[in-house]
């Protein structure tokens, strides 16, 4: 059962689609793809078993329908771009047909779970993947020495074949990949809420907050981007904002109307249906340079909705927790423990200390919070949300020109970053969509 070890390992270790130059070293490849020892694994032409087919969760296109909002859908945006079903990327490998009698002795211990064999037209046909083959057709000289020894000791006849480069993300992909080389399917096991499905309650609150963001995004002159940061454990609104790149009087948020009073907000927005002259024209993440063409008085080229929402959340943080620090200041001399605590809270920088600061009741930045955005954020905003440690991002409309969560870049798949959020697109029902464009 080589391929699953093979492609599974590749996906988990590289995650995002590898950039050119990533895979130069054959040794590195072997370690990455074939982590078991000996460095080859057995592939069995396994057909999907009933158990496999019953495995319920699909990662890609995993749709969660809101109970009360039947046509709303929440779609997970994975950390690597999906490939068309029939165009799964492949790599060349050396493989060999082996005698089924040898299967047990050849089989690496770590791959035992999927060692089923199936009779193929009366006889059992078994092949093993040996190692990666170079792109050039040059023969066996680039096979590692230990693999050569293995081939010689069992007198194997090798051939070059193609196998899928990445582990399947969905059942559909897996079925397609099995036509190239059969594997067994391991649904992704994430511990992030939502990727393997939302509960009814969660779906409903996702839809509620997205509606709230959509309402916030409307103003009299144009549609803007809006951001709402919430604490999903309490459904409390932590901060909200809209684009302040070109603010005019009608665009400034009336905090009385919006502060955690969703019903009032809904009433407000339905009473005055905004007319959109230019669809999406006022959205900073879509038209970042637009700021230089406006004539209004209050403006800032970088105050996109997500950036402003982060700023608001940090102001709230300082207001809520400032007193603690102040108390610690006063008690420094009398209580050394408090002083220690204060030092800790100042020095918070890595995840270990997140635990520490949370034990003080103060969350580290936006750890554990979700953000709702009407439009997919640009690279600046998406990276800001990485810095601020947001847990999940929900957006309604993709940003084809500058989106950094799948459209142009895909920051959730950049492995070098120190924080990764889960990304979901909330698909609106047609009527809500139409309402946005009216």
């Amino acid at each position, binding site marked *: 059962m080589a391929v699953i070890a093979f492609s599974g390992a590749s996906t988990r270790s590289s995650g995002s689609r590898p950039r050119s130059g990533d895979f130069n070293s054959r040794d590195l490849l072997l370690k990455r793809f074939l982590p078991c020892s000996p460095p080859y694994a057995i592939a069995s032409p396994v057909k999907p078993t009933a158990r496999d087919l019953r495995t319920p969760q699909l990662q890609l296109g995993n749709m969660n329908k809101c109970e009360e909002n039947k046509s709303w859908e929440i779609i997970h945006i994975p950390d690597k771009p999906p490939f068309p079903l029939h165009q799964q990327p492949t790599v060349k490998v050396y493989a060999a047909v082996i005698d089924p009698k040898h299967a047990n002795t050849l089989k690496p211990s770590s791959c035992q779970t999927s060692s089923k064999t199936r009779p193929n037209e009366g006889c059992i046909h078994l092949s093993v993947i040996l190692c990666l083959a170079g792109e050039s057709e040059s023969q066996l000289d680039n096979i590692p020495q230990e693999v050569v020894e293995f081939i010689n000791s069992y007198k194997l006849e090798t051939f070059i074949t193609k196998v899928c480069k990445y582990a399947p993300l969905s059942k559909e992909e897996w079925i397609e990949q099995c036509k190239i080389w059969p594997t067994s399917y391991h649904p992704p096991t994430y511990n992030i809420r939502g990727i393997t499905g939302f509960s009814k309650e969660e779906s409903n609150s996702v839809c509620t907050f997205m509606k709230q963001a959509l309402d916030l995004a409307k103003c009299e002159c144009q549609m803007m981007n809006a951001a709402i940061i919430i604490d999903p454990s309490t459904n409390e609104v932590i901060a909200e904002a809209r684009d302040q790149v070109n603010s005019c009087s009608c665009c400034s948020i009336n905090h009385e109307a919006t502060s955690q009073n969703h019903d009032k907000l809904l009433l407000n927005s339905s009473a005055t249906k905004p007319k959109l002259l230019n669809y999406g024209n006022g959205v900073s993440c879509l038209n970042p340079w637009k700021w230089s063409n406006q004539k209004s008085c209050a403006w800032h080229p970088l105050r996109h909705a997500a950036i402003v929402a982060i700023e608001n959340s940090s102001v709230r943080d*300082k207001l809520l927790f400032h007193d603690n620090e102040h108390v610690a200041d006063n008690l420094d001399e009398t209580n050394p423990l408090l002083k220690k605590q204060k030092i800790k809270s100042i*020095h918070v920088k890595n995840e270990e200390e997140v635990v520490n600061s949370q034990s003080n009741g103060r969350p580290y930045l936006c750890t554990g919070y979700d953000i709702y955005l009407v439009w997919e954020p640009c*690279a*600046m905003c998406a*990276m*800001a949300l990485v810095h601020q440690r947001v847990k999940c991002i929900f957006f309604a409309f993709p940003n084809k020109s500058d989106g950094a969560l799948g459209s142009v870049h895909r920051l959730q798949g*950049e492995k070098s970053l120190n924080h990764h959020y889960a990304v979901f697109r909330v698909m609106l029902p047609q009527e809500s969509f139409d309402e946005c464009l009216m």
Partner: protein
Amino acid sequence: MSVGRLVEESVKGMGSMHVKFASVHIIIKMGEEMPEIVAFMKLALEQAKIAFDNLEVPVGCVIVMDGKVISCGRNRTNETRNATRHAEMEAIDVLLEEWKEKGLTKHEVADMFSKCYLYVTCEPCIMCASALSFIGIKEVYYGCSNDKFGGCGSILSLHTNTTTSDSGEDVGRKSYKCTGGIMGEEAVSLFRNFYELGNPNAPKPHRQPIQQP
């Protein structure tokens, strides 16, 4: 290989040379240009040291127009509890505030930014690299490269493409020239000092190891 290392090795060869690395141009001229660049980078490093003294990740920058420093900034992420308050964002905001007070129009502000040079001790992160392309900065010089977050060649290259609308007007990013490896060693040693404070063996007050109550 880091950009800093590349420069170092090139300098050993002396003379004038032009190295291209990950779409970042590194021009080394042992002539008139370098002293000025180094002088401004020293000012940026001073800002980074102020950040260090304030228990912030030590990154600093200066913005230069017509050969004069017109703004400076340093990392203030811990103080503000806002992880987006990087040195570059601070320095940009100082200018925007000032120019708005002077009553400059947006067009004039855009024009001003297009004459500005940024000197920053560490390669701008993806957020800042993007922000710099939005405001339309002319040129960026940085110290050490940023292998984790770098937006000017290390992870993404946000300084390289200009986007325009269908009608041809600029609506998106403006590309800018970016040069790395200016006093990179000094920037790195500041980082090293900063992170060494977390070492329990360090003599001064340091980050505490995890202690669950």
